[in-house]
């Protein structure tokens, strides 16, 4: 199955504009939550999630806006969540770093790097145990691959041949520290293969290749292949946390970003569409964002009397 360019472009465009909108609103202090924008990294979540069915599920990281939206998480509820409103996807409990929309298959995202990798594998076991043919995608960054839980989970998932696709969104930085200062070698997929897991790396952020590779992997997973691993190089265009750029910090250079800007998948796919179709699609997405922002603005805050709700089931 080849995912239509239109469908990919719609998601890419929506996420890019949502992130830009959040960045624009941020100085008003209405977004009551730290934000780790997906700007520049959209193609990974969009490409991978295009291979999924509604009942498949994803687990992600604190940089989870793209994960959430690519899987079909409710945009209004996400915006309201960033505003700390009662109508937010987690009712003002989770904020940007803990987005969840279980109805859409967005299970959880975590501020503790790597911790959802194990949750995702357990969920995959649960799905198979219950006789489902749904699959799990675990999204994480390059920093997470340095956590012990990453290696532990690769081992267990391979041992149990679980229906899980591991996706490393490798943007080369853990906050401000480059991967070359953190990892003895960059040969991640080689390391993963030693667990008996088929692994591949996509170097250039090509959303069509990511979609095709994910589609192939998910197809294998549904046949019982055991886990698959996909490393996607990508690039974060904004600061680690917050709405702005951070070239002034000096830990990375604008030149480093240039190939990624020139290779922007949003522009590339946009140019592949008929201008009329593209304009209609963008107009619809813009309207959706305006409506979501208005929803967030107008929704009520949760009352203080709700403080102790949802501590226990």
């Amino acid at each position, binding site marked *: 199955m080849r995912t239509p360019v239109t469908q990919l472009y719609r998601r890419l465009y929506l996420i890019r504009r949502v992130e830009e909108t959040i960045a624009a609103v941020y100085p008003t202090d209405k977004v009551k939550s730290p934000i780790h924008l997906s700007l520049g990294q959209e193609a990974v979540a969009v490409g991978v999630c295009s291979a999924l069915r509604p009942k498949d599920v994803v687990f992600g990281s604190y940089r989870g806006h793209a994960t959430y939206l690519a899987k079909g998480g409710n945009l209004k509820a996400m915006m309201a969540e960033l505003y700390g409103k009662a109508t937010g996807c987690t009712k003002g409990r989770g904020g940007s770093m803990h987005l969840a929309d279980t109805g859409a298959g967005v299970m959880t995202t975590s501020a503790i790097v790597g911790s959802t990798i194990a949750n995702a594998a357990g969920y995959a076991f*649960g799905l198979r145990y219950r006789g489902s043919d749904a699959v799990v995608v675990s999204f994480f960054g390059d920093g997470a691959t340095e956590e012990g839980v990453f290696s532990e*989970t690769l081992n*267990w998932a391979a041992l149990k041949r679980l229906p899980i696709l591991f996706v490393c969104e490798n943007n080369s930085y853990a906050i401000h520290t480059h991967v070359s200062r953190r990892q003895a070698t960059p040969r991640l997929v080689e390391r993963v293969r030693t667990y008996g897991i088929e692994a591949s790396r996509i170097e250039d952020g090509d959303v069509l290749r990511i979609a095709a590779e994910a589609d192939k992997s998910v197809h294998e997973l549904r046949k019982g292949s055991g886990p698959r691993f996909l490393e996607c190089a990508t690039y974060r265009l904004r600061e680690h946390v917050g709405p702005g750029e951070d070239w002034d910090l000096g830990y990375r250079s604008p030149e480093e970003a240039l190939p990624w800007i020139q290779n922007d998948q949003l522009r590339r796919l946009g140019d592949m569409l008929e201008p009329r179709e593209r304009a209609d699609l963008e107009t619809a997405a813009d309207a959706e964002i305006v409506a979501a922002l208005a929803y967030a603005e107008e929704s009520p805050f949760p009352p203080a009397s709700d403080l102790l709700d949802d501590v226990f089931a």
Partner: protein
Amino acid sequence: MIQERSLTQIEAIREALDQEMERDDRVLVVGLGVDDPKAILGSTRGLAERFGPDRVMDTPLSEDCMTGACIGMAMAGLRPVHVHIRVDFLMLAMNQIVNVAAKSMHMSGGQQPVPLVVRAIIGRSWGQGAQHSQALHSMFMHVPGLKVVAPSTPLDAKGALAYAIRDDNPVIFFEHRLLHGFKSVVPTGEVLRGPGRCRVLRTGSDLTLVGISYMVPECLRAAEWLAGMGIECDVLDPVWLSPLDVEGINVSVAKTGRLLVADNAWLECGASAEIVAAACEALGSTRRLTVGRVGFAATPCPTSPPLEAAFYANATSIAREAFRMVTGAPPGQDLDLEMPPEIREFRGPF
């Protein structure tokens, strides 16, 4: 027909697992060695043969991953019981327990409850040493979103474990190695013992004695000696430490005016501090209270027998402190209660 017979605590735990797995095929037992020949001191004996390897699952030595995986299974609708042969290994699972299991329900705005039970065995005797003897229940009592239970009797062990498995929240279930051999009457059928009411094991008007886990039988032995000295104690077992039956304990303290908590743990920031503080907050403005605590010495647990014996609170140290609290003076030098059989007769290596 419900029949009653005596079971050891280990048999009671095994029976709870067996019955819950029979009742609900979403219940799994997960942990290193759950299907091995020693079967977690016998507590999982026969379960693998009966329910198969998917439901009685041996694991790699990966506490972080396996705790996270059990959480994921729970999110997917299963009800895993994750077994650790020693509490001390939970330190490798703290991120998943404290940052994920305890907070998932809250962070998801109610979308993601985590019906997980963590069975953790407290070691003691035969030189178990600093890393095989900790209890650490108070660490988990500190965290909202977790429930904590430490039963002392076979009946409560069976009932609390079955309850914990059916609870939709993460429950840390502490069992003490020395209590595993204790026997009591346990019904053959379903027993559910949730939080709410602490057990009153003995009544008296002079002092309230609260024991936690293995300190419960030691409190009962101390109370027996104290009775011989004319001092009568209420002896309470909270069973559930979180949520804690503060009111039940305070009913007794309001009567006696004296509260001594014996914990199978360190005192600093511990369950004993919590229980004493709760009594003082509720009763301190209306009644004069005398409070005391006994527990582990403030050192890691040593292995040499004389040092190990000095490290633990026991019936003698409980009785001595209780006597002092009631009479204002220490008992005679000759107070040295007999070492109980479960310690005297314990043989290793495990």
